[in-house]
């Protein structure tokens, strides 16, 4: 079972991100369960959302305590909430930021994890470009598809079109695709740096 935990703030579409990931996984024939943790339903308050993906029916309904994947939609939470709590040693981390992990002040923490599974993507900037709104959730899902290969960009696009329609859907699909390409390129550079 793959367990994904999303960290963000009320109003950023964090719950929608988890829901769209579950739709993408369903589209690929898998079982998925997405659910929110409604701490406080205020704009700006820290919000958690969860998505479990498996090849059989998912019965477990506890919050995700030991995630395989962390998607951090709002980097200002890094020093407010213990976002890395329970992260598995070979887990993935995707942070929405233009800044590196060192610049974000979490360089030491992430040393415990596999560096090729940790990356940042300027998802808000990408979203602004395609949607004129700073809603980074779809871009992050595109980025996650590239980082992990655990879902396809096609499935993410399908999930976006399932949730939204018209210009909003197409803007989000474009944002997801750009974030996908951004991270693919980064990973390629990383592999090249290794071979050099």
């Amino acid at each position, binding site marked *: 079972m793959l367990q994904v935990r999303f960290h963000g703030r009320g109003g950023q579409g964090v719950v929608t991100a*988890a*829901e769209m990931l*579950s*739709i993408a996984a*369903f*589209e690929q024939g898998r*079982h*998925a*369960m*997405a*659910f*929110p943790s*409604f701490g406080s339903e205020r704009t700006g308050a820290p919000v958690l959302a969860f998505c479990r993906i498996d090849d059989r029916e*998912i*019965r*477990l*309904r*506890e*919050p995700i*305590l030991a995630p395989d994947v962390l998607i951090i939609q709002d980097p200002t939470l890094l020093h407010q909430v213990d976002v890395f709590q329970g992260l598995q040693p070979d887990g993935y981390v995707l942070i929405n930021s233009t800044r590196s992990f060192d610049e974000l002040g979490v360089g030491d923490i992430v040393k415990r994890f596999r560096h090729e599974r940790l990356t940042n993507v300027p998802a808000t900037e990408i979203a602004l470009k395609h949607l004129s709104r700073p809603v980074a959730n779809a871009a992050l899902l595109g980025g996650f598809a590239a980082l992990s290969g655990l879902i396809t960009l096609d499935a993410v696009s399908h999930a976006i079109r399932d949730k939204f329609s018209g210009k909003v859907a197409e803007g989000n699909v474009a944002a997801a695709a750009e974030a996908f390409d951004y991270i693919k390129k980064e990973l390629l550079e990383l592999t090249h740096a290794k071979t050099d």
Partner: protein
Amino acid sequence: MQKQIEGSRAVAEAVALCRPEVICAYPISPQTHIVEGLGELVKSGTLTPCEFINVESEFAAMSVAIGASAAGARSYTATASQGLLFMAEAIYNASGLGLPIVMTVANRAIGAPINIWNDHSDSMSQRDCGWIQLFAESNQEALDLHIQAFKLGEELSMPVMVCMDGFILTHAYERVDMPTQAEVDAFLPGYEPRQVLDPADPVSIGAMVGPEAFMEVRYLAHAKQTMALERIPQIAGEFAQRFGRNSGGLVRAYRCEHAETIVVALGSVLGTLKDTVDELYSDGLKVGVLGIHSFRPFPLAAVRAALQGAKRVVVLEKSFSVGLGGVVSTDVRLALSGLQLHGYTVVAGLGGRAITKASLARTLREAIADKLQPLTFMDLDWRIVNRQLEREAATRRSGPIAENLLRDIGAVASKVH
């Protein structure tokens, strides 16, 4: 058709497939998405003919449902928590009059302290109101139970509550198999009321009944619930035949056959419990799970039959009768009259406290070792409980409890000095 949708949406679509003619809506978390979904289906013309009535309170919601049902319309509403309490008087009228309204209760705690999260206090508070109460384990079962509820309620002329865990189910996206309109139409016949307010054939409904017949009217309500004990498994069987899956019924057992310990529970926690006992099983511990899917009528015989081979029974419940202990446990104990079983009540998950596999496994291991207290509050934070008790012993004006506890755990800093 397989879909990946929110639990509330699944219920809204299933209710629409049942062709309700009147839907009364008043928003309250975590039920709101259900009536919002139905509102969209009525507005778009997908669900027609249907009158969607925005009412001014839950009391009005149930009152309008009563009127609509008495006029012969298939009627539906949904609520939760304080909303259910606010309509309590009308709830008793609906069942007392024998009107087959179907209502979703998106289970949520009752305040004070105000709390929007899940537990079973709300529907348990209406345990004795005369409604049939069915509990859903998953979103698939929640949608299936609504289709069964209209059939059951209308056959018996009794109202039915379908209880589903707020947020945990209502707000979860998961895979559901949505039946087609033709399939539901074939399963659920049109509503044939036993009593109807019809100007062409006038009757009055709601007569005052004195000592001469009141007990008999009440007994007949009980007799109907007794009939429901027979009809619920039959309807679930017919449903399984047509739709190819087991949903509803009185109780459903998991790994109970040779189990020495059986955990009894209601609702969505059954999933986490099944995962937990699978792990215990691989450690050689024979633990089974008994899900109660019909809480009213309470299936005494089925519960007894399922539990009588075990050595010990743990009732895990998200409800609590203050001053006594478990609510479900009391009924389970009645079902076990005369049997010498070790019995434990575990109250868990009140007000949305997460019920984790780790805590369940620890609690069940203690039960298996017969080291569990007869009444246990799982994952209770004794530190803040004891601190408040000390505070109350030390000072007369110890202040409001909820605020004190929040301050103790550092959740608020409401005190300025």
